[in-house]
């Protein structure tokens, strides 16, 4: 009964490959997010969707493409992986997109690009 789940938990791949990370939430929330935690441990927002509509799109290479097939899912597809993409990617969700809505995080996907 995990609230926010991500698959896979670990992902090791070669440079140049294309990979996807999946996120699902069973909280009935309208808003979902992707964050990246880099090697310096900073957590930075990448994207946010509200009711399947993109509402936050930070300065992220267009090799990264989020897709929200429905409110409960937000997947992240990464094309032509680069060494610098190695990081931990966290999915999160909140009841709504308004400030003060608590964000609930998934366990993270540890991506290593070789």
């Amino acid at each position, binding site marked *: 009964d995990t609230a926010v789940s991500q698959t896979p938990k670990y992902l090791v791949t070669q440079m140049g490959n294309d990979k996807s990370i999946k996120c699902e939430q069973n909280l009935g929330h309208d808003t979902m997010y992707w964050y990246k935690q880099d090697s310096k441990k900073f957590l930075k*927002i990448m994207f946010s969707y509200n009711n399947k509509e993109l*509402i936050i799109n930070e300065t992220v290479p267009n090799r990264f493409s989020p897709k929200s097939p429905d409110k409960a899912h937000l997947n992240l597809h990464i094309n032509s992986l680069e060494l610098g993409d190695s990081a931990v990617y*966290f999915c*999160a969700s909140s009841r709504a997109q308004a*400030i003060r*809505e608590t964000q609930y*995080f998934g*366990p*993270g996907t540890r991506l290593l690009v070789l």
Partner: protein
Amino acid sequence: DQQVKQNSPSLSVQEGRISILNCDYTNSMFDYFLWYKKYPAEGPTFLISISSIKDKNEDGRFTVFLNKSAKHLSLHIVPSQPGDSAVYFCAASAVPGNNRLAFGKGNQVVVIP
């Protein structure tokens, strides 16, 4: 451009004593502040928050203090327990902002039994 800063990356404290974590921010548009706690191999978990209209919020052993004029907040944990050993992230959001959170780098807290 780091808008939320957490210095003193690690803190060791004896069980039962107070843990104090500090956070500074630069964006005067920040209106809401949060602390998240993170265990290894898990995602951050919401701990406590404070709105800019308050200067203190308390929840059990956790208290957050906000000094808007100094753009500074702190988290007090008292008494500290071994289960509090984790990384603590300070975060902030602005209005408008679509609930976009800006995070600090995190502070590692180790509570010694």
